[in-house]
């Protein structure tokens, strides 16, 4: 054992050290400071000495090096394709950006773009308000709905496999352009028949159902209420695929013993839901909540996003960036607030 061990480890350490050095030296300057001390002993271990010198490098430090090795690829990518563009976009938001053939000219104007966007732009603040309001009432509905459906889909009945297959369909369709078309939003292609799509798929649907059931003489008021609900049912059903999936997974983690105990005590299904199901799925409520909020904020369907895109297509990069950043900060604040509140009401099972 003692003879067998050192070789592969030293080999690996050598390789790793060389690799790390190359990476740290060339591509990842920020890491240099933290890593210099641990860098020294590794070449020493790599020296011709046959004794198991790797013991000089503390185990913890070696593991840390491996850790950097595993995430090195991601760090390079993140620097290039995430952090630099992010900072650049922040910089643009403080600038007057001129697009010339072959180059981008930027002139620092401070907070002017932000004040322009908030005070001068006729639509932005309205869109922002609508968006926030919609997320505020839609998110709880999506959560309640998906939990409800998950509970049903978790029961045993004939045709359950088919029902699940249908309810998960939005997971694979709702992120794409097909959903935009069936949801009646074709603004990106400047389609004039947009109104027709939307009427066909939501208002008509409930009208059909009403006729089918033989209900005609409803007052106008009632009609509008029903058609708004129908409109939103469509949106809600179509945006809760992943949430149903997650809740269902959570439900299947409830130990059968809990169910047995409850049946012994003679609890109703209602009590079972509130005393057993709900506490067990509550951690997932937070996960789903955050997912839903992010999904609705980052969906290319929302009006703020479209406004930002329009700005970009007009080559107004400064305004577009400022808009994106205001929006992003609001989203962050909203998620932070929600997480803080919900975290207080969550039951974590202590193992």
């Amino acid at each position, binding site marked *: 054992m003692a003879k067998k061990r050192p070789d592969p480890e030293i080999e690996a350490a050598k390789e790793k050290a060389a690799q790390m050095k190359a990476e740290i030296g060339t591509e990842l300057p920020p890491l240099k400071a933290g890593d210099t001390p641990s860098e020294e002993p590794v070449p020493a271990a790599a020296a011709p000495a046959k004794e198991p010198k790797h013991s000089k490098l503390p185990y913890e430090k070696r593991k840390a090096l*491996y850790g950097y090795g*595993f995430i090195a690829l991601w760090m390079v990518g993140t620097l290039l394709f995430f952090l*630099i563009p992010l900072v650049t976009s922040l910089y643009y938001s403080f600038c007057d950006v001129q697009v010339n053939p072959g180059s981008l000219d930027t002139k620092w104007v401070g907070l002017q773009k932000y004040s322009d966007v908030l005070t001068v732009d006729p639509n932005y603040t309205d869109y922002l308000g609508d968006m926030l309001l919609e997320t505020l009432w839609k998110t709880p509905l999506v959560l309640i709905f998906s939990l409800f459906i998950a509970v049903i889909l978790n029961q045993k009945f004939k045709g359950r496999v088919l029902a699940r297959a249908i309810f998960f369909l939005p997971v*694979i369709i709702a992120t794409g*352009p097909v959903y935009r078309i069936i949801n009646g939003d074709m603004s990106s292609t400047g389609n004039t028949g947009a109104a027709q799509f939307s009427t066909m798929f939501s208002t008509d649907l409930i009208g059909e159902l009403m006729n089918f059931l033989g209900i005609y003489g409803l007052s106008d008021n009632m009609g509008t209420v029903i058609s708004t609900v129908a409109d939103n049912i469509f949106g809600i059903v179509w945006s809760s695929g992943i949430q149903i999936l997650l809740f269902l997974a959570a439900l299947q983690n409830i130990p059968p013993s809990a169910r047995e105990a409850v049946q012994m005590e003679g609890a109703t299904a209602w009590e079972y839901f509130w005393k057993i199901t709900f506490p067990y799925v509550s951690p997932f409520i937070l996960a789903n909540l955050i997912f839903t909020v992010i999904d609705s904020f980052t969906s*290319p369907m929302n009006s703020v996003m479209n406004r930002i895109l329009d700005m970009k297509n007009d080559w107004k990069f400064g305004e577009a960036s400022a808009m994106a950043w205001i929006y992003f900060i609001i989203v962050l604040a909203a998620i932070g607030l929600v997480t803080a509140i919900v975290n207080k009401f969550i039951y974590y099972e202590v193992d």
Partner: protein
Amino acid sequence: MSENTSINAAGEAVVKAEHEIGSGMSKKEAKRIRMETMSREELAYLRRKSIAEKVWPFFRFVILFGLGFVIMYPLIYMVSCTFRERSDMNDPTVMWIPRHYTLSIIKETIQAMDFWKTLRTTLVLNIGCSLVQVISCAITGYGFARFKFKGKNLLFGIVIMMILVPTQVISLPLYVQFRYFGIRGLFTVNLIDNMLTMYLPALTANGIRSGLMILIFRQFFKGLPRELEDAAYIDGCGPFKTFIRVMVPNAASSFLTVFLFSVVWYWNDYYVSTTFFTNTKTVALMLTNLDSELKIRLFNDPTVQISPREEIVWKEAGCLLSIAPILVMYTFLQKYFTEGIERSGLVA
């Protein structure tokens, strides 16, 4: 010992009683006797339960059918539109069942979307990117799950940021970056319209929704028992060998699930691809530009006027064509989409 005997005794008594019931009395009688021995609460509970058991399946069916209809409606409508002639769109009596069946619409749409070529490009791009991205995200996720290093929390904060920041925020500087890719002053390459704009981020765990994927893999690897790796370490495996030989085989099914989701996300993406592609066409891009393509390729005239109502026929056919491959995949691999999630660590 005494407990055992008492249990045995009780068991015998029950068997005896059942025997008596079975032989001596009719079933009805037995039921009556059981009912009499119950308290009022028990009876009420049983009654409630039996009512609920009879009524609930009916309600469940209504709920599932109604909501399932909301999901299936657009799909059924797509199929219905695809196989009708466009004059049927103006016929108010035609809602679901076309009056004139035809295959010409779908043929025209295939032609307008240049479907087979587009499909091939999209598949190569999707599968390639997804494969590379799953691997890079798994490696990164493993690094975050099992190693302690300086600045780990900060770095993981960046992963969370990747999930939160909408692509729209960074797409513009990214465009500029790909347009003049390289080291400034030394050399620059124009990568716009090159597939590398998709491959490079995927390769470095920064592709579409890769933040989420890193998070999933981290959770998953955290959930695996540490003993697995310890055994490998003692046998003289380095961390990389351990990862490939021990962890990857254990994660096979969750790899597949994440891969499938990744394929779907790449398939559905049109935002990133519109930003970087001008001539390269993916199915999603073709669908978003379908109406202009229609006019150019079918009528050789970009200014031709088609009534929007008739245009729906081609649009729906286009939709059907673009979700068909994904639907086929979903039908065959549904198990991995729905059950894989439980094992893939999102649930930890």
